Every structure is written in structure tokens, then in C-alpha cells.
């Protein structure tokens, strides 16, 4: 065991020092100084619980995607059948109960309708299934139902789009280094370091920003509308502006024939020159502008409703055709809410509503306090432990302490290289790892002590000590890896940070405690060849 070839020694030192040096940028950072720019800087990120900031988990409701798909399909089917060379009349259209059903009045056209509708459905990704099923009941009733695979795919696409929209909106707030990732099938995780008041952010993300322009049905019976009873072909939409304690005023609009406000090139906060009220000026792209021009020129003199997220902002009368491709939206806005709407419209509508299901905000003072106290505890703990080990194991204790310090540097260095996040429990993980790293040393040293008592010679005792102890060290640390892996798999942010420190710490502590100290001990034994050792 005294043989340590030179290449091995060099190699071990290279690995150790490489990781240990990689810790420097992080240490400079944690101490509150700046690492000079331009030099390689593998730095650990500070978790939100240390750096302060907001963590927000948003969730979409897949049922909403299902409803949207069915409504979209209804419109597609209507348009398709209307556009056929010989238009087919359908009736009794219903999109309740998660399916779209309609009657084809001429039984002779069943096959033609099926032929026409089939291309509206697609394969559902790589599942080998279609995204809709089409059945004909009682000879002439079409039943179209979205399949689970189709819904899953649609939800997945909607979430991808939602992530993009969320990113654009957060960027518009000008916050630095936000993390925006999908989490599971229907969730988006948003983390914004340094953000203290997440209210503005939550307002912004809570706004779906689906803008619609629909014609008001002036012929609807006002008392029916107030009770929420829609005339055929209409829908009832409440006003956004509600006086406290009163039911929301409602208005009847034509369900079809409106346009969507998603074809915009720009949306800006503006002012009404007369009243000085905050408004939002939107600019359509050429397609959207043409549709808007067509709608307004065909309906001069009639009122149309501007609907945002299912609520009427205003229902002005169309005075003249609007051909310039831009429009001004007024509502009961404050400057803040108008600029927030402008951001939302610019970034596009969210394909689904997002709800905040989990939120955690940490103030910067608490985080700074935690770092400071964590560092002090680590320093004091390490010093006290080093003193204990030194008086217990003498020269071997010196090796153990060197291994401990190297171990600390290596963990931090490895974390920086991987780019993981240091969280508050992670700091505890550091302290714990120090304690655990000592265990490996103790196992070895105690075994050497024991073998000496049994009368083995120095070199042999050291050799057996390392060999026999390594087995238990390996088993014990392997179970720790199991626990840490499960922690990582099932934990969330801070706990995962802890698990990462544990995992890295287990590997580096076994490396420093077993391999490095063995090298040092071997070099010392070979140099001095002592007949007796104090341990």
C-alpha cells in the first residue's frame, strides 16, 4: 500500500485542486465581493431562500383546453360544410358533455359529411391514435369526441405556448434572470430572484388577455339578458366593471361573426385626449387589420363589444369604418392596469388560463441573514471538529483535517461546475457532510488502532485498516446516496438543493477521506518508516 506511483499522485492532486480551485469564484461571491469578469467563473447559484425572490407555480386546467377544442371544432365543421360545393344543412348542434354532436338533415349526405369532417382531425403526435373520434348514431347524428391522446397533445402544445407567453411578459417587466420552466403536464414554474413584491407579476400572469370584438345583438330582450338567457345564436357576457354589491350588468352578443384580437403587431398605453383617461392603442397586422376593416365597414352605426377574457370592457358604437388597422380600447383603466394590458396583448394571449397554486417569496434580509449565520455555524463547527479530531488522532488527525477542508472546497467547486443551486437546507447539508466525512476517517483510524493492538506491524496495520474499513464506508455511503436520490426525486426547490449537496458531498468525502489521506499516510510512512505510530 506504500506504493503510490508518481502518475497517480499527480493525477489525484490535479483532480483535487481542480475542483477546489473551482470553488474560488463562489466563495468570493458568497463573501459579498465581485469575481473579476472575464475569468472562468463556475459559480453556484443562490436559491431563492438565500438570495430572496419569488417562486410561483402556475397551473392550467386541462378541462379548459378540452372545451376550447370542442368550440374550435364546431366552428371548423360549420365553415367546412358551408364551403362545400353543395352545402349540407346541419341542425341541433350541441357541444355539451365533452362532445360535439349535430344532426345531418339529409341522410343521403352522411358519407359526404364524414368525408368533409375527417380531414379536420389529425393524428395525435406519435401515439398512433387520432385526436378525435367520429361516430354516427341513429343514422344521422354525428358525435365527435376528442380522444385523451388528442387532449394531452393539445394541452402540451398549449403549455409550450404558455411558457413562451409567460417569458415575454416577465421580460417586459425587466426583471433579471427569471427561470421559467414547465413542471409536469399542466404546470409552469416561475422563479424570479430579487423580486420583492410579486403582486404585479401575478396580476400579469393571471391575465389570459384573450381579446375579442363581437357585435352586440340589439334585438335581445333586456330582461332575458339580465337573467342570463341568451337568444339563439347569442351569448351573454358580463361587464368587467362591477359596482360593489350589485350584480354585474350583462350584454348579449352574437356568438359568431366577431373577430379575435390576437393578430396584433403592437399594443401601447395611451391617453384619451379629452378625458385624460388611460387607454390602450392596438395595431393590427395586415390580416387582422383587413378583418377589422371588414367588420367595422359592414356594421357602421351598430354597437360592438370589446371583450377581454370573457368580460366586456366597453361596447361603443361604430361611427365609421376603421380602415387604418389600429384601434383604441377604453375601459375603466388605471395607468397601471392599462400598461399591464398592453404588455399582455403585446406578448399574445395565453392559450389557457393560469392559476397560482403555490407561491413563496423571501425577503432579501432574511436570505442574507441566513447566509451569514450559516457561514458562521459552518466556520465554528469546522474549527471545533478539527480541534476534536486533532486531539484524538494526532498526526492522522492533521491529515483528516486537511481532507476535510479540501472536501469543503471540492463540494463547492463541483456545485459551481455543474451550476447547481445552493439553498438554505443546502448550507445545512454542508455542515452535515463535514460531520459525515469524519465518519469515514474515524472508521479507518479506529481500525488501524485496533490492528496495532492486535500486534500487527505499522505498515500492515495501516494497510488492513484502510482495506477493512473501506467496505463498511462504501455500504454506509451507498445507503446515503439512496436517501439523497429519493429526496431529489420527490422534493422541491430547497430540499433538492440539500439532496444535491449531500450527493456531491458523499462522493467527495469518500474520495478525500479514503483516497487522499491514504496517499498522504503512505508518503509519510515511506519517508520515515516509523516503528511505532501514535493513533
Amino acid at each position: 500500500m506504500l506504493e503510490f506511483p508518481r502518475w497517480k499522485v499527480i493525477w489525484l492532486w490535479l483532480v483535487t485542486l481542480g475542483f477546489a480551485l473551482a470553488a474560488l469564484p463562489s466563495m468570493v461571491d458568497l463573501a459579498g465581493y465581485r469575481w473579476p469578469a472575464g475569468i472562468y467563473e463556475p459559480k453556484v447559484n443562490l436559491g431563492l431562500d438565500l438570495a430572496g425572490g419569488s417562486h410561483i407555480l402556475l397551473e392550467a386546467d386541462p378541462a379548459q383546453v378540452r372545451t376550447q377544442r370542442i368550440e374550435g371544432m364546431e366552428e371548423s365543421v360549420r365553415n367546412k360544410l358551408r364551403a362545400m360545393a353543395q352545402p349540407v344543412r346541419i341542425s341541433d348542434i350541441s357541444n355539451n358533455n365533452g362532445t360535439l354532436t349535430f344532426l345531418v338533415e339529409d341522410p343521403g349526405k352522411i358519407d359526404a359529411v364524414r368525408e368533409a369532417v375527417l380531414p379536420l382531425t389529425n393524428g395525435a403526435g406519435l401515439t398512433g391514435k387520432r385526436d378525435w373520434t367520429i361516430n354516427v348514431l341513429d343514422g344521422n347524428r354525428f358525435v365527435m369526441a376528442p380522444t385523451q391522446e388528442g387532449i394531452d397533445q393539445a394541452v402540451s402544445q398549449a403549455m409550450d405556448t404558455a411558457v413562451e407567453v409567460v417569458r415575454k411578459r416577465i421580460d417586459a417587466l425587466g426583471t433579471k434572470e427569471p427561470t421559467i420552466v414547465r413542471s409536469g403536464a399542466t404546470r409552469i414554474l416561475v422563479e424570479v430572484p430579487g423580486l420583492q413584491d410579486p403582486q404585479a407579476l401575478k396580476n400579469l400572469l393571471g391575465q389570459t388577455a384573450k381579446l375579442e370584438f363581437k357585435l352586440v345583438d340589439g334585438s335581445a330582450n333586456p330582461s332575458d339578458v339580465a337573467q342570463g338567457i341568451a337568444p339563439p345564436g347569442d351569448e351573454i357576457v358580463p361587464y368587467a366593471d362591477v359596482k360593489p354589491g350589485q350584480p354585474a350588468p350583462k350584454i348579449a352578443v352574437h356568438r359568431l361573426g366577431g373577430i379575435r384580437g390576437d393578430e396584433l403587431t403592437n399594443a401601447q398605453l395611451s391617453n384619451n385626449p379629452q378625458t385624460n383617461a388611460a387607454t390602450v392603442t392596438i395595431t393590427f397586422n395586415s390580416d387582422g387589420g383587413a378583418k377589422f376593416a371588414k367588420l367595422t365597414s359592414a356594421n357602421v352605426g351598430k354597437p360592438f363589444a370589446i371583450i377581454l377574457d370573457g368580460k366586456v370592457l366597453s361596447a361603443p358604437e361604430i361611427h365609421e369604418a376603421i380602415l387604418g388597422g389600429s384601434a383604441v380600447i377604453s375601459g375603466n383603466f388605471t395607468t397601471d392596469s392599462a400598461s399591464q394590458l398592453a404588455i399582455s396583448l403585446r406578448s399574445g394571449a395565453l392559450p389557457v388560463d393560469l392559476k397560482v397554486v403555490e407561491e413563496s417569496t423571501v425577503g432579501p434580509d432574511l436570505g442574507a441573514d441566513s447566509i451569514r449565520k450559516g457561514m458562521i455555524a459552518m466556520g465554528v463547527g469546522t474549527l471545533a471538529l478539527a480541534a476534536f479530531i486533532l486531539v484524538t488522532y494526532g498526526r492522522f488527525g492533521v491529515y483528516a483535517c486537511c481532507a476535510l477542508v479540501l472536501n469543503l472546497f471540492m463540494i463547492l467547486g463541483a456545485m459551481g461546475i455543474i451550476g447547481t443551486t445552493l439553498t438554505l437546507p443546502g448550507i445545512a447539508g454542508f455542515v452535515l457532510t463535514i460531520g459525515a466525512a469524519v465518519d469515514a476517517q474515524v472508521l479507518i483510524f479506529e481500525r488501524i488502532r485496533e490492528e496495532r493492538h492486535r500486534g500487527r506491524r505499522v505498515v500492515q496495520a495501516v494497510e488492513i485498516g484502510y482495506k477493512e474499513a473501506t467496505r463498511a464506508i462504501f455500504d454506509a455511503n451507498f445507503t446515503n446516496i439512496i436517501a439523497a436520490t429519493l429526496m431529489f426525486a420527490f422534493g422541491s426547490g430547497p430540499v433538492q438543493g440539500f439532496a444535491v449537496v449531500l450527493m456531491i458531498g458523499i462522493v467527495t468525502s469518500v474520495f478525500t477521506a479514503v483516497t487522499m489521506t491514504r496517499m498522504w499516510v503512505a508518503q509519510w510512512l515511506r519517508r520515515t518508516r516509523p516503528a511505532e505510530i501514535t493513533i
Partner: protein
Amino acid sequence: MKLLKLVPDNTNIHFLRWRVPFYIGSLLLMAASWGLVLTRGLNLGVDFVGGQMVRVTFQHSAEAPIAALRGEITRLGYGEPIIQRYGQPNQVSIRMKLPAGADRDPALSDTMARTITTAVKADHADARIDGVDAVSGKVSKELGWDAFKALGLAAIFVAGYIWLRFEWQFGIGALLSLVHDVTLTLGMFALTQMEFDLNIVAALLTLIGYSLNDTIVVYDRIRENLKKYRKMPMPELLDLSVNETLARTIVTSLSMLITLIALLLLGPPVIFGFTAAITLGIFVGTYSSIYMAAPILIWLKVSSKSFVPGEAAGDIPAAAKR
């Protein structure tokens, strides 16, 4: 140079002589822990029951005005808050259940958090809001279930690993001792009513890892001695193994305690409960490796034969075996 020796060489303490009373005592303690958990219950954090937690530091007060706060917040009409000190006497966490209907309309819970923080800041000029946590009912159920899964799987995997590396009896012994450790720690949380949140589950997992660390060291020595002393009666062999590893056990436990106590006394107050759980775990873990994990091997009839097959094959010529 004279070195510190906490444990004299060649100790011969008959740990296992008292195994029956100790076992009964341990079982009683476990039963008491379960009793406490079931009757008093755990003081579950918002991670597991949903709701909101606001952390406040009163910067210029020696002590947080807890009674006054309780009155002020109750008057806001969202129900009675749970107010607890954490860390310094001037730091508190205020926990609230989510308002009714918050699952459908998250804006309600936002409004509640804002009303509370505004009220606290208005009534106490030196109040500094250090953090707001809100977890919906649905997410909290998932977190609870995930935590349960993690603990269960950890126990099973770890016991399985030990079964693979040793023998099935050792796997059962390890499982029993870690159930013991986790149970007693839960009992402590029920007794002290410290907040039980997701971090504590991480602490329990850590505890499982380190308690097993200890168990494995003792088991490893038992296995070694089983091969070495084939004729020695089991209780004697277990005593020998525990005694041989005693110095290591004491030194390691002390090392862990030194760092943990530094963390408890000087570390961040936010993770006090977490550190406390692990500290307790060091004690029960060390105890359980000696008194839970080892004696069960006697009752499960482990003997040298459990490890002989490999060596026996070496002793007896292959032909003689048939």
C-alpha cells in the same frame, strides 16, 4: 504525544444482556410516539395542509408582540392565525388557512396575504416582512403524498440494499431500526409541536441515511466476526462486535453532534427544526443500531452458517458435497 481517548481499549460492556428490557422500552416509546402523533397531532406547515405563512421580523423590538398580533389579525375576519416564534424572539411566522373558495379563485388568497401584511406593517412600524408562502390545497396534498412516498421508498430500498449485501435478517433489523428512529422523531415533533414542513421530511430522509450508516458499521463487524468466530454464541458475538466498534461509534456521533450543535446555536433560525430533527436522529440512530438492529439478529436466528456457503464450498471438496 498523548492522544485523547474517549473509549478505553478493549471494552467489554455487556450491551446485549439488557436486550429484552431495552427492546420493551423501545417498543413502548414507539407506541407512545404514535399515541402522541395520533392524539396531539403534528403541527403541519402550509406545505402539507395548504394555506399561507407570512414571516415577520420586528426589527426594533426585543420580543414580537404575539398576543397583539393575534388580536389584530383575527379582527381582519379570515379566522384565527397560528402565530409561532422562530429563531430570535422578535421573529414570528403567521400561518393562516386558505380562505374559502381560494382553490377556484386564487385572487382571494392574494388579497388575504396583502391585507395581513398591510395590517401588520400599519400596526407595527418596525415590522419587516421576510417572506410569504402560499400553497393551494391541491398542491399541498401532492406534497404530502410525495413526502410519504419518498420516506416509504427510502425505507424499502435501503432495507433491500442491506438484504442484498448481508442477509435478509439484517434487512429486517435495519428496517426495524429506521422505523424506530423515524417514529421517535415524529413523536418529538408531536410533543414539542414544532412546525412539521417539507424540510423536516428531508431531515427524516437524512436521518434514515445516517442512522443506517451506524447500523451498517455494526453489521459489517458482526458479519466479519461471524466468519472469524464460528463457535461463539450469538449474544456474545454481538457484544464483541458492538464493543469493537464502540470507539468509532462514540467519536463519529460526537463529531456529528459538534457540527450540529454549532448549526443549532449559531445557524439560520429558519432551519432550526430541520437541524433539531437530525440532532435527535443522531441519538436515536446510535441507540437503535445497538439495541434495535443487533438483538433482532438473535431472534431471527442468524448464525455463522448464514455466511458459510461460500467458505464451506472452499472447505469441502466439490465431490464430497454430492
